[in-house]
């Protein structure tokens, strides 16, 4: 592998991302040509990045790339160590698919929209994401981090004519900046203590610190990165911002941008801090569990398809954090092998989520483009006009629900195994945490399945619920190609998990000092096991094969007994009304109604029914039904907080009430105080 010029490929990738943006700016005049050149360059960049990262990952050693910059104290230093390369690989894969998709997606852009600006910020996002994953010093990292936020902000605000998008962008940027503030403080503290801002100087720098310093650093970083990771309770920007962005961008944001937060947490807790205190791992586990369960609960009741996917992103970030927290706890207990299982679960789920969430967002983008609405209640029946998009969405839905034999199942299975192992290998009360987390993960998984049954069932099946949905058309071939790549990857990563997982070996080696693939892949590469073959195995490919073979049985049964040709199409049962219309259909709101009632304490649903009638209440002339669910964190924490701050600020403004005498008095008092207290030492 040494003959592959990793640094050249890496820089080539970055350059072609950047070139894409600069070419994109010319979209003003040459819309069509720009689109093609732009997508070609981003694809090229993604390919180069992907190859470079894969090579670096297989190399299992760090590649350092350094370019001088025109700014004092700054060197553009990138390091492709296994962790960075892994994240960059996931990113490259997603960005390749999204770039292919964009070729078609941008074709359907409103001509009045400044395509050039879009291309520019899109490629800026690509460049900055790459830089975030590979930056090797804190200064560069923070610059890349903020550039990422800036470009994401403009992409979220791209459709700023709608007020909600604008405020979504603002919310995103403000939250992100609050996080960045914490990160900046964290990095500078760490830099002060470590004596340098280089990531290589940070390596295990935390090990020498007192537990209090370690803990406070961890909290700063955890908060800062948690905001980006979409962790509850600092997630509120995510369900606002991801739907507001154009389809391809929201795919990128949900699949990759939130992973930068996870990347940061991994970097911090395994690389920089040495061995953080036990409570850090438990905190991550708890935050992950809360995010997973609350995320999916909010996803369940969301009528907006893209918002629903955004909430599901929170859920998956939670699952990733659960595995990560488990790994940290095991590490604290000195169980590297178990920690490695949890870490592998976490890392694999990161990749998987990147793949299926981008797939789902891309399909959602195609659907929104075709129907002009994000509301599930306005879709329906899309499987007929857009069969391939529907198929892609279905694959994504199965994968994200963690159903075998696709990739989501494998990573969730590993997570369960790690949590199960945690019970036996930790002490006292800590051990009860794991089964509880496991059972909540089970609830999350089941609710996620319900959620995606609802999304696919209401959105794609049965009758169209609006004229636009009825007149929908299949997506552009390029869009289908992009989605198809990801769908195949979902299947491939699931069935070929035993082949893929050994790639994670360098990562566990780097972070924990143990390689896992020997224990993880058993029975000649057929099955996976959590460290010991007796502890349970799973063979996704075997399951898939068995499912296909077993399908012969019902086929044979039908072939034996059933006389062919007796399939009569007929109307579905319409309760005796004249014909089934979209009004008879079960709605998305109704679908989640039982859960809304069961979890009423969380949702605090409010509903209002107004019936107008003339003769008697049994013969209403019109019924107006309104139902609303209050997002708990927004209504109970953030809104009062912002109101409080604003009220305080307003009150504070009375110091500048216009009277010059007051102004003079401020100076006077300051002067007198300083004279009295300052002169005498």
């Amino acid at each position, binding site marked *: 592998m040494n003959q592959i010029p990793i640094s050249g490929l890496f820089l080539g990738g970055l350059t072609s991302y950047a070139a894409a943006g600069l070419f994109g700016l010319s979209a003003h005049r040459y819309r069509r040509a720009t689109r093609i050149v732009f997508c070609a360059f981003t694809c090229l960049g993604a390919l180069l990045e992907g190859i470079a990262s894969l090579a670096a990952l297989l190399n299992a050693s760090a590649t350092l790339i350094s370019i001088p*910059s025109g700014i004092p104290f*700054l060197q553009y230093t990138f390091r492709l160590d296994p962790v960075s390369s892994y994240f960059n690989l996931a990113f490259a894969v997603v960005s390749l698919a999204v770039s292919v998709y964009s070729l078609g997606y941008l074709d359907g852009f409103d001509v009045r929209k400044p395509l050039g600006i879009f291309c520019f910020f899109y490629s800026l996002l690509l460049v900055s994401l790459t830089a975030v994953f590979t930056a090797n010093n804190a200064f560069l990292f923070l610059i890349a981090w903020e*550039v990422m*936020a800036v470009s994401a902000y403009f992409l979220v605000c791209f459709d700023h004519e709608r*007020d909600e998008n604008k405020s979504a962008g603002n919310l995103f940027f*403000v939250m992100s900046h609050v996080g960045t503030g914490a990160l900046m*403080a964290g990095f500078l503290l760490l830099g002060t203590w470590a004596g340098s801002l280089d990531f290589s100087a940070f390596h295990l720098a935390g090990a020498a610190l007192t537990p209090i310093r370690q803990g406070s650093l961890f909290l700063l970083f955890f908060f800062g990165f948690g905001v980006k990771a979409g962790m509850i309770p600092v997630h509120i920007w995510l369900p606002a911002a991801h739907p507001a962005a154009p389809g391809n961008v929201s795919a990128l944001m949900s699949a990759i941008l939130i992973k930068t937060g996870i990347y940061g947490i991994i970097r911090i807790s395994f690389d920089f801090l040495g061995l953080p205190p036990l409570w850090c791992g438990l905190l991550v586990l708890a935050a992950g569990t809360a995010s997973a369960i609350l995320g999916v609960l909010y996803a369940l009741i969301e009528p907006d398809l893209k918002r629903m996917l955004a909430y599901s992103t929170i859920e998956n970030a939670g699952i990733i954090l659960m595995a990560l927290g488990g790994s940290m706890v095991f590490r604290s207990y000195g169980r590297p092998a178990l920690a490695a299982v949890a870490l592998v679960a976490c890392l694999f789920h990161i990749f998987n989520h990147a793949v299926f969430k981008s797939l789902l967002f891309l399909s959602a983008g195609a659907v929104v483009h075709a129907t002009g609405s994000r509301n599930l209640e306005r879709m329906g029946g899309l499987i007929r006009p857009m069969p391939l998009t529907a198929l892609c969405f279905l694959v994504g839905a199965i994968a994200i629900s963690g159903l075998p034999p696709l990739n989501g199942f494998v990573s969730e299975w590993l997570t369960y195994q790690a949590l199960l192992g945690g019970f036996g290998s930790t002490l006292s009360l800590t051990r009860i945490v794991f089964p509880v987390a496991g059972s909540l993960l089970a609830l999350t998984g089941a609710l996620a399945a319900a959620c995606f049954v609802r999304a696919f069932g209401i959105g794609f099946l049965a009758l169209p619920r609006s004229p636009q949905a009825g007149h929908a058309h299949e997506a552009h071939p390029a869009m289908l190609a992009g989605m198809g790549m990801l769908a195949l990857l979902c299947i491939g990563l699931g069935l070929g998990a035993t082949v893929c997982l050994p790639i994670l070996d360098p990562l566990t080696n780097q972070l924990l000092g143990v390689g896992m693939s020997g224990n993880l892949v058993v029975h000649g590469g057929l099955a996976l096991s959590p460290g010991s073959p007796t502890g349970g195995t799973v063979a996704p490919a075997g399951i898939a094969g068995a499912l296909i073979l077993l399908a012969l049985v019902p086929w044979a049964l039908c072939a034996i007994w059933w006389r062919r040709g007796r399939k009569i199409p007929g109307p579905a049962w319409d309760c005796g009304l004249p014909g089934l219309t979209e009004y008879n259909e079960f709605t998305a709101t109704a679908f989640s109604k039982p859960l809304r009632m069961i979890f009423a304490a969380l949702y605090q649903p409010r509903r209002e029914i107004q019936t107008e009638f003339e003769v008697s209440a049994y013969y209403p002339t019109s019924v107006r039904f309104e139902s609303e669910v209050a997002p708990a964190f927004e209504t109970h924490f953030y809104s009062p907080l912002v109101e409080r701050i604003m009220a305080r600020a307003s009150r504070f403004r009375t110091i500048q009430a216009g009277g010059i005498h007051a102004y003079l008095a401020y*100076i006077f008092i300051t002067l007198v105080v300083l004279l009295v207290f300052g*002169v005498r030492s």
Partner: protein
Amino acid sequence: MILLWLLLIPFAAGPLAFFLRRRPLMEAVNLAAFAVVACLAAALGIRVLQSGPVSLWDGFLYADALSALIVLLTAFVALVCSIYAVGYFRHDEQYTFFNENKEVVAEIAVFKLRKYYSLAPLFVFSMLLVALANNLGILWVAIEASTLVSVFLVTFYGRKTSLEAAWKYAIIGGVGLSMALFGTILTYYAAHRIEGTETLAGLNWSVLVQNAARLDKTTMRLAFILILLGYGTKAGIAPMHTWKPDAYSEAPVPVAAMLAAGVLNCALYGLIRFYILTAKCLGPQFGSQLLIVFGLLSMGVAVPFILVQKSFRRLLAYSSIDHAGIMVLALGFGGPLGALGLFLHMTFHSITKPLLFFCAGNIQQQMKTDLFRKAKGGLIHSMPWSGAGILLGTLAVTGSPPFSLFQSEFTILRAAFGRGYLPAILSVSFLVAIFSGFLVHISNLVLGPDPGLPSGESCKWKKSSVIGLATVIVVLGFWIPAPLFSLIRSAADIVVIGR
């Protein structure tokens, strides 16, 4: 000689413009003068870099790297402001902004233009004198002169509110400068027991700094307090900042930009010169503690006003208070990093703020208001350049990378964390809060649905100054010219080493 020309050209340009009377001529005189001054400033910078401090008339005028940097920034700001002013005042004249009664009175217009075009060079002259005067007394005189000139410029529109603003500016500035003068007198007193300081040179900074260790300590404490409050008033450090929002929002935009990017630097320059003396005399502890407290106070005071703000011109003023606080904080944190951060910040701020003011001015002229409420939103549709410019400027001024203010703020924060955790954490949180308020206000102003206004960017002068500045800001984000950086570094060395 270069020093003399630097002062003479703007000094002569004022009266010349006054007598020329005709608008194109006045514009030409201003532009030419400031262009020459900018070239001279650049030349001075190079000369100082190559061959050390330059002085004239027995060290009456003296330029080391610190002065050269201030001169360069002032000249740059003056040049861009004069370019912008052409378009700005032409627009004012065209739409009869000069007279509230909407009576088109040509004489009033000419009178007002004469006022601006003759006072602006004098304003610049006084600012250049601040940087070039070696004598601390002359420095004071020059700052006072700049105040007086700018008071007239603040009353430019003659509205009730501009009178009010001018009064507050003049009175508070006057009080502040009295304190500064007191401090200067005390410094002279602290030094005058030392041999060879009884003459005029006794107030020369270059002389004082060599004898700084022998200055009377108690006197220097008192002097520094008074200087801090005095020049702090001029720089707009809380709680002496109260004139700033009024003056910045009432002055014509080019003047406001010069106040924010020129006078601020000059006032800080005075403070820095005294700080060097104090630090050498009393050790860094005393001065920096005070500076940190006042810096944090300024940043903190700016927060609520930026969060809840009705007018975008005042928003910029509070941002200027915030930045004055940051720079004072940087001076207080001290050390090589702090000083370097200070001058980087000063440089970048002086380039970024005018852009914001120009865009705000364009918007104000187009919308005939500076209130967010009345300007509504969606300005990007009718004014794509100014809208994009103010958005870019907002990101830059709030310290978002890749723009260069992030680099300086990062450097300053590095110094901060090296020194103590509480001020550092506080300043980070203030920065975040200010960013939030600023961004939400400006994005609501710029983005949004198209209100269907006619395009408002026909003037080449206004547009070119906005685009030019924006380009400079973007370029500086990625590349700082080596000579500029070494000038900044030598200026920082002066603060650290004292020479």
